[in-house]
């Protein structure tokens, strides 16, 4: 695991505005706050009779998913449509890649379709960076999740959820629980919480599901759920990623649930007004009890709604940053 991105300036233009959205690493607090503020405005648009604004009219957003996804893919589609962009979605996992086409060749073909923006999900860490490096200038690349590395729009929608329910980050205790090792969501959340000034970030997991060097993120590590949940304001549950498990990291799912599953009884140790989040899809009875997932503390479905607004914010800001860079380059050339 490499907690620091060497290529972080890639996602910013010369004025420090977003032009790609690849990782939350290295992004300033002001920029993250701007994303949250813009998303707040888009949330209001989502409550109107006509949920569409003309911002990206005439632009084409191409969703390229090398890995399965339902929630992320559909909310990105919805976000692009609500910005009046044209959207095409390619499930590459079921097409060219399986026929032996390289990532770069797939990319060149997509460029030839004159897309203005790619939303990429890929099973390999760093895939979105790679595409952003090799894509022709003026095309924005948004990371929709790459391997174990990052899922920055999920990270930001989680931050929006926390801010809308808790107001700010300054006095919060936030616990991230479960399969930290395989989770790009956990990485993006730890970075975002740190940047936004959350003073108490906890990760709770069995030792086998904790990556080596996790302390570099400035988090407190707990291997006991009851101890870690004590007096927290926010609980972020993670899905147990069975499909990524190789080797005997866990004795059994039943054992995991017994020790790390979030139940009503366990949640009683957290603050009475705590919120429970989960990026989905939830595994009932594996990491979370149904009574908690459907209970009064759960904001899991709100997260989905906020996800559309965050994706609208990121799509429009990245397009805006590309535009600004093009103007800047033209002025420089004159």
């Amino acid at each position, binding site marked *: 695991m490499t907690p620091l991105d060497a290529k972080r300036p890639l996602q910013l233009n010369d004025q420090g*505005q977003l032009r790609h959205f690849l990782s939350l690493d290295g992004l300033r607090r002001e920029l993250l706050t*701007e994303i949250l*503020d*813009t998303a*707040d*405005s*888009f*949330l*209001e*648009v989502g409550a*109107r*009779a*006509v949920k*569409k*604004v*003309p*911002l*990206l009219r005439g632009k084409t957003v191409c969703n390229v998913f090398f890995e399965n996804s339902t929630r992320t893919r559909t909310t990105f589609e919805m976000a692009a449509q609500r910005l009046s962009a044209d959207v095409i979605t390619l499930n590459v996992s079921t097409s060219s890649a399986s026929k032996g086409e390289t990532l770069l060749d797939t990319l060149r073909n997509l460029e030839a379709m004159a897309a203005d923006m790619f939303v990429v999900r890929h099973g390999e860490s760093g895939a979105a960076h790679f595409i952003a490096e090799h894509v022709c200038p003026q095309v924005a690349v948004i990371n929709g999740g790459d391997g174990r590395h990052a899922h920055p729009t999920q990270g930001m929608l989680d931050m929006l959820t926390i801010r809308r329910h808790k107001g700010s980050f300054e006095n919060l205790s936030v616990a991230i629980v479960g399969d930290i090792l395989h989770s790009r969501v956990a990485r993006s959340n730890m970075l975002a919480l740190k940047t936004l000034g959350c003073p108490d970030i906890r990760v709770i997991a069995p030792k086998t599901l904790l990556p080596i060097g996790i302390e570099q993120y400035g988090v407190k590590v707990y291997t006991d759920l009851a101890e870690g949940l004590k007096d927290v304001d926010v609980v972020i549950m993670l899905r147990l990623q069975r499909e990524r498990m190789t080797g005997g990291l866990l004795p059994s799912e039943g054992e995991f649930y017994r020790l790390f599953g979030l139940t009503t009884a366990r949640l009683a140790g957290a603050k009475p007004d705590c919120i429970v989040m989960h990026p989905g899809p939830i595994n009932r009875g594996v990491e979370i009890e149904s009574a908690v997932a459907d209970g009064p503390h759960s904001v899991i479905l709100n997260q989905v709604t906020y996800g559309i607004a965050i994706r609208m914010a990121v799509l*429009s*800001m990245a*397009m*805006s*940053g590309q*535009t*600004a860079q093009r*103007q800047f380059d033209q002025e420089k050339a004159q």
Partner: protein
Amino acid sequence: MSLPNPADLISQMAVDLNAHLSKRAIVEPRFIGIRTGGVWVAQALLKALGSASPLGTLDVSFYRDDFSQNGLHPQVRPSELPFEIEGQHLVLIDDVLMSGRTIRAALNELFDYGRPASVTLVSLLDLDAAELPIRPDVVGATLSLAPTERVKLSGPAPLHLELQDLAL
């Protein structure tokens, strides 16, 4: 050039707006200010009218036609319309009317909320530089500026107009 004092313009605008509305037999109009300057003018105007009507605020950033040139305004705020738009008589208020493009964007946004019965346009200043067929129904003052000159309103209290020269 000396610029007028906004406070002096507002009271006459209130009189003109009342006359305009009664001529059209509009009894309960809904007031909407365009962020940011238009909201300040609207607040002052409501005060001058002695009206306690709720004020809607509109942020037209998502509807601007210069997104592909200028990008997204970094401080976009949610529009807040605390009343129905459908079938209502609206009074749309801005600070400085220049090309008319902001009003075009505002009208497009309003129509995404519903179909108003009418829209009356009120502007503190008209710079007589329309690029679209959009004219105010009620205006505080009309000015003609040199091509490089701009007017900026500061506020909300007191409202103050300032002349800026882009060439300097």
